[in-house]
């Protein structure tokens, strides 16, 4: 009888080229290398300096997302990219992709988008694959039962040159989500609650596996929101077992296996879920039914509270420093926090269903006086789909701006910035100091909470609109 294995263990075992020993890490084969303009230029320089070629162009894809503009005139209208160094970086990716033979979705390409949105959209993200990218939110792809994790630029170079990485095997951590989320409580609220519970370094050294009824009931978009933020708990990766929902999503994608290959793939993927009796190194249980919408109040994603609650107290100096940066005080009611800026988008919540959820709250309402709202689709494909069902009109009618796809205001590399001192309810993944602009005060929340807060001009429980 074979030893029961976890989903992670199965994917790991399938990709070991050379097993690890006491002296050397495992050589792990990488099935898909997603790349973008920010974390690759120095890796290509290294390849060039050593006279190395790209080993597997067929397993490598490049897009532009982080430093690209979202203003239509700069993307399609011939107006130069406003940030000079960003323009240069975008150009450098075109040069590198051409020289090394990488398929590139350039600025005007209709398939371009945030790297973690387009992988799944194309059907390149598949169960059982190892997927890496020079971006920490690569954990997103774990929603399909892939082992997907972020790497630095040196490792990007390793994968370009050898299609492999040197890795010590991480430990496994089961996040058992029992019961179902109440109406009006979303995947974003759940992952924020999980990070609040295990802490921003609670997952360090582990690959998380999200399990249980609430996870099984989720759409792929929701599962991606969950896995996306695994890194915010410090985890190497987050995974969810592939099932009928996964297969149904992939079947409609352009680059998923077709015909007889599809049947074979589904049979293979169906063997991936964790075996009964498999042992995790650690586990925690979360009751989904007990949750309400969540909002962060501090400067890391673990500083999170119910939208119905207040800022907690702590004697800790770092905690006090975070509150000072945020201009908040212990005991302050969360729903009293004023909002000047709202951002809907990012690899966490920039998919079509996220835009629908924000639009459903916003429909028929106007932004509160003094609120600026930016809606940035995760990909050009999401943008087209949203426009086809009129979501752009809902946002524009409310007074929000509708842009071209990209990382945008999640990290403010492209000129989309929150002014210093402003409160920004954002559907993105990080509320670090200065993340959305120097002095910006970010409150992470779901698309529904973001939209509700835009209407009221203060942090608002979206259930006031949907119930």
């Amino acid at each position, binding site marked *: 009888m074979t030893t029961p294995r976890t989903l992670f263990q199965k994917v790991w075992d399938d990709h070991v080229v050379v097993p690890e020993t006491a002296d050397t*890490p495992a050589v792990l084969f990488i099935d898909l290398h997603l790349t973008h303009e920010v974390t690759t230029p120095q890796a290509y320089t290294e390849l060039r300096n050593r006279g190395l070629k790209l080993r597997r162009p067929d397993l490598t894809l490049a897009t532009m997302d*982080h430093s690209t503009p979202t203003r239509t005139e700069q993307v399609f209208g011939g107006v130069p990219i406003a940030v000079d160094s960003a323009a240069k*970086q975008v150009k450098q990716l075109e040069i590198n992709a051409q020289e090394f033979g990488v398929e590139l979705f350039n600025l005007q390409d209709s398939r371009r988008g945030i790297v973690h949105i387009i992988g799944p959209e194309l059907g390149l993200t598949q169960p059982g694959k190892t997927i890496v990218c020079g971006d920490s939110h690569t954990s997103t792809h774990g929603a399909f039962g892939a082992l997907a994790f972020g790497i*630095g630029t040196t490792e990007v170079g*390793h994968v370009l040159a050898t299609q492999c*990485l040197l890795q010590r095997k991480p430990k496994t951590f089961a996040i058992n989500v029992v019961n179902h989320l109440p109406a009006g409580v979303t995947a974003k609220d759940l992952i924020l609650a999980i990070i609040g519970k295990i802490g921003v370094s609670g997952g*360090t050294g582990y690959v998380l596996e999200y399990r249980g009824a609430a996870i099984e009931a989720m759409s792929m978009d929701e599962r991606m929101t969950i896995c996306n933020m695994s890194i915010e708990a410090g985890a190497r990766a987050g995974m969810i077992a592939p099932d009928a929902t996964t297969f149904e999503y992939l079947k409609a994608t352009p680059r998923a296996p077709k015909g007889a290959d599809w049947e074979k793939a589904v049979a293979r993927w169906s063997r991936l879920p964790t075996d009964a009796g498999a042992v995790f190194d650690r586990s925690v249980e979360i009751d989904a039914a007990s949750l309400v919408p969540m909002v962060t109040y501090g400067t890391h994603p673990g500083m999170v509270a119910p939208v119905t609650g207040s800022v907690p107290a702590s004697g800790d*100096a770092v905690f006090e420093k975070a509150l000072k940066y945020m201009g908040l005080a212990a005991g302050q009611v969360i729903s009293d926090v004023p909002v000047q800026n709202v951002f809907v988008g990012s690899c966490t919540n920039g998919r079509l269903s996220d835009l629908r959820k924000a639009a459903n709250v916003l429909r028929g309402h106007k932004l509160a006086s003094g609120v600026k709202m930016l809606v940035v689709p995760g990909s050009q494909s999401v943008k087209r789909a949203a426009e086809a069902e009129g979501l752009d009109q809902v946002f524009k009618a409310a007074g929000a701006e509708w842009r071209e796809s990209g990382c945008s205001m999640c990290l403010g590399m492209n000129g989309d910035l929150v002014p210093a001192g402003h409160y920004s309810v954002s559907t993105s993944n*990080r509320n670090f100091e200065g993340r959305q602009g120097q002095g910006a005060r970010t409150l992470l929340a779901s698309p529904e909470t973001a939209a509700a807060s835009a209407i009221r001009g203060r942090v608002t429980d979206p259930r006031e609109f949907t119930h």
Partner: protein
Amino acid sequence: MPAVTQIRSRTVALPAANIDTDQIIPARFLTATSKAGFGKHLFADWRYDGDGNPKPDFALNKPEAKGAAILVAGRNLGCGSSREHAPWALQDFGFAAVISTEFADIFRTNCLKNGLLPVLVDEKTHAWLLANPNVELNIDVASTTLTLPDGTAVKFPLEGFAKYCLLNGVDELGFLLSKGDSIAAYESAHL
């Protein structure tokens, strides 16, 4: 990569826990296409005021921090973004080692790939180092030992292969390239 065998230097301390890589090097500096020159932007938003002048009360701006090659930081250093620009900035500024009780995974890996030594210490040693900044330490890679000013030797963990690479100035790409036959065999078995 140059070999890293011993680091002897004074420390500078940033006691905050969870210092993320956005603080180490803010995103607006990531549009560069070379590894050079990030040191001047290290901790930019903590180090400079709105007019670009150094804030005198920030630890790295104090006279005693000049020349310090060891950064002692609060728990969970380097969380957040995978940007390797963070260790590049720390090294370009002059740091050769970082000390904490916990490092974020990707940051730790990125440090080792560049010969910036992450030294994991126990709570007691950490508390002492934070309470006593600007002390002279000796870090020996071969014996994985940190020596405090009073002569106390503190062992730290270092993965065997990473240690070998540091001591011999070996970079891992050469090792991976030497596995070309195994990689080709794996590829032909998994078409």
